[in-house]
């Protein structure tokens, strides 16, 4: 709750990671530098070697500053409507993510309510919900896209569906737990007041599930983003961070891959942070913190 206190530790950890990263870059990229030099009959000194490992075009592991430079060039220095702007691609992915997140949350919520209130659903659906998540989505994503395409759905929606497939699960699990969080006594109280099912839901079960709800939302948001990216791969590398990752991988553009990765993580972190903010506001209004 007090982000300020965390800044020093976070900076320390980041600094440590950056140092390790530079070291790893030297280690992983050195072979290539040495081979190139050998082919060119050139000797490289230690300093030269290090500098060259940090400035390759297609390194095995790009150095942090290379990624940062690329990020800078593709976000700040490009018009955000340009196809070469990472902001543009991030937006494409984000819109599918948000759509999938919304759908997934709604579906997960509905299923959870059904499971909590209907015994049949509790017994029959839950095992299959779990089984559904053991299916490798990357394998069936192309088929989903094709089938939806055949049904005349294209563009944002197919991606959102895959996003939904990944994001409804954490919501179901979390909300079932949350809606069942009220103690026996709290439920009994409602009974003595002869509260209706709706009253019980809105005045007891829903408020008690709030902490679980927000935790699930955070996980679901991260899952949605992965879903949107997975969904972008088989729509034909057109646009979005997924397409960017893919294109980067065909052409061995590791720097481009890493910057797309970081952009994705930043988008996820921002969205999760936003949910956290809403969570704090809500819980504060509910007097819980």
């Amino acid at each position, binding site marked *: 709750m007090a982000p300020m206190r965390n800044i020093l530790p976070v900076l320390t950890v980041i600094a440590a990671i950056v140092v390790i990263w530079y070291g790893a870059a030297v280690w992983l990229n050195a072979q290539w530098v040495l081979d190139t030099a050998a*082919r060119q009959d050139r000797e490289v000194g230690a300093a030269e070697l290090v500098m060259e490992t940090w400035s390759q075009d297609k390194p095995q592991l790009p150095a942090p500053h290379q990624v940062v430079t690329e990020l800078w060039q593709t976000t700040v220095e490009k018009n955000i409507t340009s196809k070469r702007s990472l902001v543009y691609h991030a937006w494409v992915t984000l819109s599918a993510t948000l759509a999938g997140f919304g759908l997934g949350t709604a579906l997960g919520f509905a299923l959870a309510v059904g499971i909590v209130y209907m015994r049949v659903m509790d017994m029959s659906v839950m095992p299959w919900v779990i089984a559904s998540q053991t299916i490798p989505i990357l394998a069936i994503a192309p088929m989903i896209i094709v089938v939806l*395409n055949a049904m005349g759905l294209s563009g944002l929606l197919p991606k959102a569906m895959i996003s939904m497939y990944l994001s409804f699960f954490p919501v179901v699990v979390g909300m079932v737990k949350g809606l069942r969080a009220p103690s026996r006594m709290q439920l009994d109280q409602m009974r003595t007041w002869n509260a209706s099912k709706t009253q019980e839901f809105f005045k007891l079960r829903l408020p008690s599930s709030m902490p679980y709800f927000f935790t699930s939302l955070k996980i679901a948001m991260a899952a949605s983003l992965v879903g949107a990216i997975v969904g972008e791969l*088989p729509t034909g590398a057109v646009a979005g961070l997924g397409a960017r990752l893919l294109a980067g991988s065909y*052409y061995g*553009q590791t720097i481009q891959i890493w910057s797309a990765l970081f952009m994705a993580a930043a988008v996820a972190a921002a969205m999760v942070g936003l949910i956290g903010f809403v969570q704090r506001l809500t819980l504060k209004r509910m007097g819980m913190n």
Partner: protein
Amino acid sequence: ADELSLQLKWVTQAQFAGYYVAADKGFYEEEDLDVTIKPGGPDIAPVQVLLGGGADVMVDWLPSALAARENGAPIVNIAQPFKSSGLMLTCLKESGIESPEDFPGHTLGTWFFGNELPLYSWMSKLGYPTDGSEGGVTIQKINFNVDPLLQKQVDCATTMTYNEYWQVIDAGLTPDDLVVFKYEDEGISTLEDGLYTTEENLEDPEMVDKLTRFVRASMKGWKYAEENPDEAADIVLENDATGAQTEKHQKRMMGEIAKLTAGSNGALDPADFERTVEVLMSAGAAPVITKDPGDAAWTHEITDEALD
């Protein structure tokens, strides 16, 4: 205008310049067609898109098209703009490979999805086992890039004359560091980018008419691209939505592509077809096609009409 959609086998690049040029130069419009070009990628099986109704016609390679046909997909080749194969095996000279005799004991990386079959058939012709046993080679599946070769995870890797080979060069290796074996030269070449549609479409006269006009305009695009490679590359770049392509690479690619389309007027040469089938069926271990698909897998109906 009549709507028609085309599913490509790969991402937007000069490999498909003919179609982009035809669209950009208005050749499709002249034929009263409104063509949507859908880029592909490694996770897209164009056949699925075609059968699912997401496209009317697709670009595919004959090996995977035949494999799909044997698995119950009623698809037919209607035109073949690419005459020769751009596939080759690129090896690092430092690994000691200079000729096919040197293969044993080395790891050969290849793309799968049917692309591995010519290689298997070559190895069986050479008499090398492919299970990594003594005196044989190890076959490794690699993805559609050249990293495994650059990082020496494999000694040889499949590349296209127009794309991956140049990525190796761009990475800093010189042609002198490499040894290449073109499939075309080794007698294991298979037909690449052809145009395919479903049997159902071919029974529909209206569709046949549309496809005819499409093939005609596309071939016009191809010939234009061959003659104006730089302009064609620019058009391709224009259409790349990922923003990941570079001008240098696309211009070079266009030049190489022109060599592959050169010998074709768009009609499939039945001899090439027979050769492809033969290569695929002699692949040994796990052939993807087990029986001769016969002439039903291709038709001259469209090209005859279009190119008369």
